[in-house]
Every structure is written in C-alpha cells, then in structure tokens.
C-alpha cells in the first residue's frame, strides 16, 4: 500500500512538466480585449499564422525585441499573419509609457494581462517567450529570450508556416 502511494506521488511529480505547452500541441485559447477595445479570441484566428509574444516593460530583452516585432508585423501585415502581443505589467502606466516611446508605434493587437493569468497556462520558461501558432492552432515553434541575430529565424519560420497550406 505504502509503495503504491509513494509511486503515485513520484508519477504525479514527474507528470507535472508534461502540462507545459509544447511544439505539436494545440495552443491554449486566449480571450481578451485589446488596448483598442476589440474583443480577441485566439481560436477565432484559425486560418492565420499567429505569433504570440509575452512581454513586460520591466524585461530588458522584451523591450529590445519590440521594435523588431513592430517592423516584422508591418512588413507582413498583408499576409495571413497576426502578431498577438500580451503584456503582463502590473501598472498600465509602465506599459503605455514604453509603447508611447516606440517609433513607429505598434499596430498589432495588444492584450494587457494585468493579473498574469495567461503565462501559467503557457508555462513560460523565461521572458520574453514567443510562440508561432500555425493555421490550425497548433504550436509550431517556441522561442525564449531575444537576440538580434535570431531575426532571420523568425522570418524563415513565418515563411514556412505561411506556405504550408496543407495545415
């Protein structure tokens, strides 16, 4: 009996990391209202490639990545592509001060997740973390941190997912 209980606990502890979002799994749904006041639901974006970016104004690499994402989104705005930006700042002022400093200003949808309810569902390993979701809503790529040398990787991943019409 004791052995069974111990084994049960060990299995439970080992199984915990399996709940983290992984490549090949459906992306957990996201509901919210953007800063522009539009209702947004991730599951309604099927048929488009979605890049989800979790960021905060207190995270230096997140801020370094943002001008690239603005440019990346503007360049691919006419494609079947949506960049969904999720901010987890506690204070709205901190988020808005940073967004106002960006030139050009971001035009992609931004969700303010003040209570940080979404990161635990995606089990973020670090900040920032980005997820490429294919046209069927399946996670195809997970990227943690940001390095300017990785810009080409974002481009090639997007091109691959846009071309893949069989998804």
């Amino acid at each position: 009996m004791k052995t069974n209980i111990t084994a049960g606990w060990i299995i439970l502890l080992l199984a915990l990391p399996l709940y983290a979002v992984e490549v090949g799994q459906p992306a957990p749904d996201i509901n919210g209202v953007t800063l522009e006041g539009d209702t947004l639901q991730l599951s309604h974006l099927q048929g488009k490639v979605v890049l989800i970016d979790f960021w905060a104004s207190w995270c230096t690499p997140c801020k370094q990545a943002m001008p690239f994402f603005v440019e990346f989104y503007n360049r691919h705005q006419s494609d079947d592509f949506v960049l969904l930006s999720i901010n987890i700042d506690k204070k709205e002022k901190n988020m808005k001060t940073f967004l106002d400093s960006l030139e050009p200003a971001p035009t992609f949808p931004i969700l303010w997740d003040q209570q940080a309810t979404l990161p635990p569902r995606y089990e973020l390993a670090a900040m920032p973390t980005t997820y490429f979701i294919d046209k069927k809503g399946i996670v195809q790529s997970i990227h943690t941190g940001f390095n300017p040398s990785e810009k080409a990787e974002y481009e090639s991943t997007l091109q691959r997912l846009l071309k893949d019409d069989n998804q």
Partner: protein
Amino acid sequence: MKTVYRSIVLLLLIGAPALFSGCTRVQPWERESLADPIMIFDANPIEKGIEEHHLDYREGSAGGTGAQSGGCGCG
C-alpha cells in the same frame, strides 16, 4: 530504538513542511519587483547600473554582475 527512530521520522515529516514552506520558485512572469533596478545590491543602485553599462562597453563584456532588469536573467 524503533520508537526513537519513528519519532525522528515523524518529527521530520511534520517539521519539513514548516521549514520549507517559504521556499518557492519565482516564475519568470512574477519577477517584476525583482527586476527593478532598485534591487541591485548597492548603496546607489541607479548609478551602479550606469557604471556597469559603461564597463560592459569599455571591456566588451556583459553580465556577471547581476541579473536585474531582465525577466529571463539575460538582460
């Protein structure tokens, strides 16, 4: 002897949760306060940050002095 052993085990089982209840992993999305420059262990944290930035440029190096202001510890 067996009773003493059982008592020690029981004491550890009861005491361990009390000892380790304060130990928890701070998740990446919970590091807003820790990422504040004021968390730099120095009398003048803001000036220290500027000094480190200059040092990084002068020596072509980065890191090794702390992980403040970067959620993933790489900022």
